[in-house]
């Protein structure tokens, strides 16, 4: 096994993405060929990348390559360690599923849109992600980060004829640059401490900095990575940008691109800085709780299927941050075992969320593909015309709601265990925050289940609510295959969690100095334990088997007792009115009405009812109903900020008079000032 060159395979996978990018651009005139080249090379790249990642995880240790560039502080350094291998594995699995799905999905673009450009951006996005996850030099990382942001911008605005899309793209690119700016400043502080831009040199660099600068570095990195991950209150671009992209891209954006923020936090806070002060860990935990709850509460109010999923990404990033925050706190408190459990909870949830969110977005993609609308209020009854898509979406919905026996449950269970352990492991009043965070996680989970009852039932069950969802067809086999592949992984990660958790051994050893993962498994490899003395145990495989046996015996009982009796189909009870129509059905808005009223402090709902009548108000001809909730963050936080920036730029206009002489003078003055500054040093 050691004879296989990991670096070579990884380089080949990068080459496959690059070839795919330029080859599909070159073939843009022939859209069928461009589609095949785009998806085929992405699939090859993903397979090679997956092979390299699997090899990296199995082999353990770190493989590093560096090519000097001649530019100071910059080198083409890559490091393929356990953390990099783990994120590359997620990328490879998702890129594989999405490229198979895209074979069918892109067909509707043929002759209508430029698949060459799409293929270029798509492959460049995958390439830049692979570079971000592997780069070992701050500037190489930032280049990958920026290319990723630009490729994602191009893909988000792919339907650029739409005003909403262009606005979302603008918001996205502004936020992406704010985060890149924060990261640049953060790295500048670290480089000042270590004198080098290599990640390896950052170990211990934090201790060279004063505590104020350390805090500044933490805040800058948290802002930079937090904006990318979409944590509240920096989330506003995410629900705007993710839904407007083509669905296969939404799937990638929500599942892996936002995870670069989580990767960055793990890389910088845990690996490079070797821990952050405990207030910082607490901040991460609290922001995680807020993101999780507000994310799911906003998702509940959505009836745009894709935007609903986008808000759930914010929620799940919050859950990941709870685990990560706990890991950071335990690390400072000198509890490497607990830190390991919490880190595994966070990283396992990162993987799980990537898988089921990609699956759900691909499912939503085939629904939107068939019905032509993202509005859930016009859907319904799709389970009959699209049975496979419905089944895959249902599995994703169960998994994201954290219900056993699927993968979402396992990682949420680990998060609960680490939060509970936090009560005993830390001192002072802050320990009370851990069980409280746990109860908020419970609220989040229950609300997510309510939201996915709504999302699944309104989309797939009962009668079609609009003409869009009548006479629809199932998605082509390639799209179904892409979804089916992820469905199987969802089930496998849930049922085989104990088998899979071993891969975290290398990562925890590298990041925390203690190997955690294998020791969480007891009971002949079937039972997952929290690894803490007297901690809880769970086994999804046994629970699933027992559930199957018990439900199966209920089926037998009903079959035997009811064998003589008829089972017939009849109309649903319609209260004696002539026939049940789709207008009698509950809608997504109606479903979430109780929660809208209970949390009205947050939503500030506004509704308007207008009745048009001829003779008496008791016999209206038509009723117009309008209901909306207040976008709190956009209105209270970002609107004043935007206004301030506009006012500032109006002031700035006075020095921009359009005279070239004045501009030359500005440049000269700046140069002199900079020279003076340099000489003074």
């Amino acid at each position, binding site marked *: 096994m050691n004879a296989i060159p990991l670096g070579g395979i990884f380089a080949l996978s990068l080459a496959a993405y690059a070839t795919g990018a330029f080859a599909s651009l070159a073939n843009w005139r022939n859209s069928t060929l461009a589609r095949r080249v785009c998806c085929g090379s992405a699939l090859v790249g993903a397979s090679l990348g997956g092979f390299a990642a699997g090899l990296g995880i199995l082999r353990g240790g770190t493989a590093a390559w560096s090519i000097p560039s001649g530019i100071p502080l910059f080198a083409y350094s890559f490091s393929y360690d356990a953390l990099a291998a783990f994120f590359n594995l997620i990328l490879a699995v998702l890129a594989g599923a999405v490229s198979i799905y895209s074979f069918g999905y892109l067909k509707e673009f043929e002759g209508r849109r430029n698949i060459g450009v799409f293929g270029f951006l798509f492959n460049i996005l995958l390439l830049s992600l692979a570079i971000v996850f592997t780069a070992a030099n701050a500037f190489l990382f930032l280049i990958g980060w920026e290319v990723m942001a630009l490729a994602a911008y191009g893909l988000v605005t792919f339907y650029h004829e739409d005003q909403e899309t262009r606005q979302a793209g603008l918001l996205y690119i502004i936020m992406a640059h704010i985060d890149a700016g924060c990261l640049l400043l953060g790295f500048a502080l670290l480089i000042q401490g270590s004198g080098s831009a290599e990640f390896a040199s950052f170990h211990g660099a934090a201790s060279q900095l004063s505590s104020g600068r350390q805090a500044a570095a933490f805040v800058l990195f948290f802002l930079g990575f937090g904006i990318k991950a979409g944590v509240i209150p920096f989330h506003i671009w995410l629900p705007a940008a993710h839904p407007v992209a083509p669905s296969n891209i939404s799937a990638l954006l929500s599942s892996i691109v936002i995870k670069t923020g989580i990767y960055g936090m793990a890389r910088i806070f845990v690996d490079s800085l070797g821990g952050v002060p405990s207030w910082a860990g607490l901040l991460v935990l609290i922001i995680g709780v807020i993101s999780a709850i507000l994310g799911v509460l906003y998702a509940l109010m959505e009836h745009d299927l894709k935007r609903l999923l986008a808000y759930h990404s914010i929620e799940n990033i919050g859950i990941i941050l709870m685990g990560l925050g706990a890991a950071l706190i335990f690390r400072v408190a000198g509890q490497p075992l607990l830190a390991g459990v919490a880190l595994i909870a966070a990283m396992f949830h990162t993987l799980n969320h990537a898988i089921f969110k990609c699956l759900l977005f691909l499912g939503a993609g085939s629904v939107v593909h068939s019905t032509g609308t993202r509005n859930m209020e016009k859907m319904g009854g799709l*389970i*009959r015309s699209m049975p496979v898509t419905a089944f895959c979406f249902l599995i994703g919905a*169960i998994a994201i*709601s954290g*219900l*056993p026996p699927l993968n979402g449950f396992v990682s949420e269970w680990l998060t*609960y*265990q680490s939060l509970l352990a936090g009560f*005993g492991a830390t001192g002072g009043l802050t*320990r009370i925050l851990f*069980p*409280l965070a*746990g*109860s*908020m*996680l*419970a*609220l989040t*989970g*229950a609300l997510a*289940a*309510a939201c*996915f*009852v709504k999302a699944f*039932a309104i989309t797939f*069950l*009962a009668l079609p609510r609009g003409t869009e969802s009548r006479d629809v067809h199932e998605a082509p086999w390639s799209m179904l295959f892409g979804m089916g592949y992820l469905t199987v992984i969802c089930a496998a990660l849930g049922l085989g969690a104990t088998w899979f958790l071993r891969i975290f051994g290398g990562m925890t050893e590298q990041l925390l100095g203690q190997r955690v993962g294998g020791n969480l498994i007891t009971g002949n490899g079937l039972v997952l334990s*929290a690894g803490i*003395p*007297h901690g*809880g*145990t*769970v*086994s999804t495989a*046994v*629970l699933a088997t*027992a559930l199957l046996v*018990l*439900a199966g015996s*209920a*089926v037998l*009982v*009903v079959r035997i007792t*009811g064998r003589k*009796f*008829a089972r*017939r*189909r*009849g109309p*649903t*009870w319609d209260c004696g009115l002539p026939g*049940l129509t*789709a207008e009698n*059905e*509950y809608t997504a808005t109606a*479903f*979430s*009405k109780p*929660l809208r009223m*209970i949390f009205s402090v947050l939503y500030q709902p506004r509704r308007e009812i207008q009745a048009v009548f001829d003779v008496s108000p008791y016999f209206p001809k038509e009723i117009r109903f309008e209901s909306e909730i207040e976008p709190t963050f956009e209105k209270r936080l970002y609107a004043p900020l935007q206004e301030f920036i506009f006012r500032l730029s109006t002031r700035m206009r006075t020095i921009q008079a359009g005279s070239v002489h004045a501009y030359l003078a500005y440049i000269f003055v700046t140069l002199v000032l900079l020279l003076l500054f340099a000489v003074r040093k």
Partner: protein
Amino acid sequence: MTEVLTNSGLQLALLLLVSPLLSGIIKSLKAKLQTRRGPSIFQTYWDVFKLLRKGMVIPETASWIFSAAPYIVFGTATLVGLMIPMTTTHAPLSLFGGVLAVVYLLALGRFFLALGGLDTGSSFGGLGSSREMTISAIAEPAMMLAIFTVALGANSTNLSEMAKVAVGQSWRFLAPSQMLAFAALFIVLIAETGRIPVDNPATHLELTMIHEAMVLEYSGPYLALIEWSGSIKQLVLMTLLVNTFFPYGLSSDWTAQTVSVGLLFYLAKLLVLACLIVLVETTNAKLRLFRVPELLMVAFILGALALISTFLF
């Protein structure tokens, strides 16, 4: 191995056979307190038996989800019952899932039942599902906080471990944290089993009903399964309450004697808790739907106080 098998058999029998009796006792006691004659305590058995031997009508609009839901609800309710210690501190499947798995398995059953309610296309189904998911979501944090308080005391989320720790300390329920946690969990029990003042199990009035609206389209054997699993779920939650807070009669040995003593104590404790539920149901009026969150908020605050008092005392 034989011990696990007999124990599973015993618990399964208790779940399947005692739970309808408990529902019947509650109904009958309630009627007595309201000076009505009321049904026989065995009425729930006859209902389930009758429904199992009837034909059924499945709505034309419904898909396979509608038919799968009753089985999943039944499966999760009985599975959860096997994870909770009843007569001794040993629960057959305790190793394979603690209290977190219990809560989440019940949520899985509820998830499918709510889908089944919406699958029919009737507005009653949607109404019931929407309200059920809302109430349970708001009950969840209170429930978890109360459970965490007990779990932190026992240092485990494993129910057998929690019971074992409780056994040694008979007067522990007098500790403020335990009393507060019990009060919080009792409110959650009322909400989760759909009893007055949260929901009225006897009503069929669309303005007030929650659970009954959701299962309105179910008939025959499917309805039997749903009613039966409702009773089982009620028994499970009551067991959780009596055995974690009042571990009398629980023994960590597993012999014929300890089991029979445990069984007697267990049934007696259930009866006392049933009386408490009846008392609450008879002396309270049903709350308006939008008052229920306030009640559950009370439970949440009780849970938080319970947690803080473990920290203080």
